[in-house]
């Protein structure tokens, strides 16, 4: 999962809240009396952002939908309207479904490790008495998230190498040689090897975010729990976890959304192989467009990704709105 997705999603959650505040500010005082001309002149501040976004973000998105109805060769420029053919082809394409399934695996395993695993880990780290050790663990766990998915992917490509890779040599040294294998070269292990790398790369990021959330819990609550003789396990389940559940819910949605946008690590480590076993939607889109030169199908896959991520974004907005009412 790229680090961009979670931050963007957190941003979305607050977006709704802030719009309301803006409304309040806008209506205040003498500003309303300003001339209309001065108002329009104010748009100058927004013009660059709106222009750049319209040209490079929103327009391509609209075009993409139009392209998904075409049979189109980008190199000789031939375009034919084919209606829903591209979508029908996708529906009967086993690799598309396999890619979608891999995205689902990605989401599921990331929720287990990067959301719930990281939550437990963050709670453990935050329960340490020594502030310096807390900092050390948080900081070092985060390092893989600072190095790019590309570098991490290349690194694990070497670690997974059949003969000289760290993992197999390690297994052999432990006497578990029978488990050593070509992790990225076998159809049934490739995607899971990539997902495992992604957990390594991303868990420290979630730990950091959960730590921030846990630090916001008032210390008095912990002191009260301690006076009542509540042990650490019960404290986690009846105090820490419920009090950061907003963050947890957010992370779940963010993680799923990120899992459907996966591209870098798969591209670097397997390019979707062997035999398309580790394709995900993003790499299958790339393959359709830039390897088999079928841009209509690529656009249709793009629409599929768009719909999935849009639904998740809506879920997120609804979730944050619901939470807002409860506060």
């Amino acid at each position, binding site marked *: 999962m790229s680090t961009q997705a979670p931050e963007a999603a957190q941003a979305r959650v607050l977006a709704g809240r802030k719009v309301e505040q803006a409304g309040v500010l806008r209506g205040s005082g003498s500003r309303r009396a300003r001339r209309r001309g001065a108002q329009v002149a104010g748009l100058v501040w*927004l013009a660059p952002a709106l222009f750049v976004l319209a040209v490079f973000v929103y327009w391509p998105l609209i075009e993409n939908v139009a392209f998904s109805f075409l049979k189109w060769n980008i190199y000789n420029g031939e375009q034919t309207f084919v209606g829903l053919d591209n979508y029908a082809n996708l529906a009967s394409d086993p690799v598309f479904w396999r890619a979608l399934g891999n995205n689902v695996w990605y989401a599921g395993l990331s929720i287990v490790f990067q959301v719930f695993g990281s939550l437990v880990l963050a709670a453990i780290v935050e329960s340490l008495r020594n502030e310096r050790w807390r900092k050390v663990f948080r900081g070092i766990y985060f390092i893989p998230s600072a190095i790019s998915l590309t570098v991490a992917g290349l690194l694990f490509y070497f670690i997974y190498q059949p003969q000289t890779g760290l993992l197999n040599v390690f297994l052999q040294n432990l006497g578990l040689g029978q488990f050593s294998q070509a992790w990225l070269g076998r159809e049934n292990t490739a995607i899971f090897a990539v997902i495992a790398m992604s957990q390594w790369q991303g868990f420290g990021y979630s730990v950091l975010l959960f730590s921030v959330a846990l630090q916001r819990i008032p210390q008095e609550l912990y002191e009260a729990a301690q006076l009542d003789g509540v042990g650490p396990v019960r404290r986690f389940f009846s105090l820490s976890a419920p009090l950061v559940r907003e963050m947890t819910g957010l992370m779940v949605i963010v993680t799923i959304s990120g899992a459907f946008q996966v591209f870098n690590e798969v591209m670097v480590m397997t390019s979707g192989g062997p035999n398309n076993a580790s394709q995900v939607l993003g790499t299958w889109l*790339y393959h359709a467009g830039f390897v088999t030169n079928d841009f209509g199908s690529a656009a249709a896959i793009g629409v599929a990704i768009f719909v999935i*991520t849009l639904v998740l974004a809506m879920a997120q907005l609804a979730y944050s709105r619901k939470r807002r009412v409860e506060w």
Partner: protein
Amino acid sequence: MVTLLRLGRGVRGAAVWALLLALLLVVLYPLVWMVGNALKTNAQVFNDPFGLPTSLLWPNFATAWNQGVGEFVLTSVSLTALATLATELISVWAAYGLTRVNIPLNRQLTVAVLAGLMLAPTVALVPLVKMFQGLGLYNTFLGLLCLYTAFRIPFTAFLMRAYMLDLPREVDEAAALDGASTAATFWRIILPMSTPIIAATVVLNVLQDWNEYLFAMVFTSGTGVETLPVGLADMMSKNGTQYPVVFAGMVMAALPMVILFFVCQRYFVRGLAGGVGK
């Protein structure tokens, strides 16, 4: 009874530390291995993957640098710097316009700027390639600069907007009373007051732009505009037998961001946590 309890606590404490330290090892060992391999000979990488480097071949770094990493670094540094600068400027203007200037259709324009948060870059890939080929931006530095800048605006503007909404209203009013124009108020007052959020978003944008792979891979074809991530992936496929050199390149790509994180950890956390449950 008391001793039993204390013993139980001790065991649990030991288990906790064992877990935390084991994970520390899982995180650090591959990274140390990466640095170690960058210092080995090719033969040692293959024959003794676990061993410490016997030779400390710093020249591997020079070789990597001369075999293209130098150019990748130059491209990545200038792209990251310019794209971050452009994103910051455009976003801070937009945030100012949305929060402190009286403009028509404020609500709709806010949505127009922030809705980009919902879009995955992959979705726009095909039309962007077509557009860039038409505009002559395909395989150019300028093309990547446009994409990097544009796709980071919604998030950056979002954080800045949230921050500026919390700045006291009286500041602008005082400036207006002193006869300052909207522009003067921005440059002399609001911009300086926003430095904390600017610092936070700069750190996040630098990290993202430096590590970006999708656009850099799709929109370049290996001539002079390769960024570090793309160049390294390329180097590995072409240079498959000179592993230490590839590892040296990876270290050079990773190290600046690790240092950036540790130096700017405070801003980092502020930026990341900026959207979360205030």
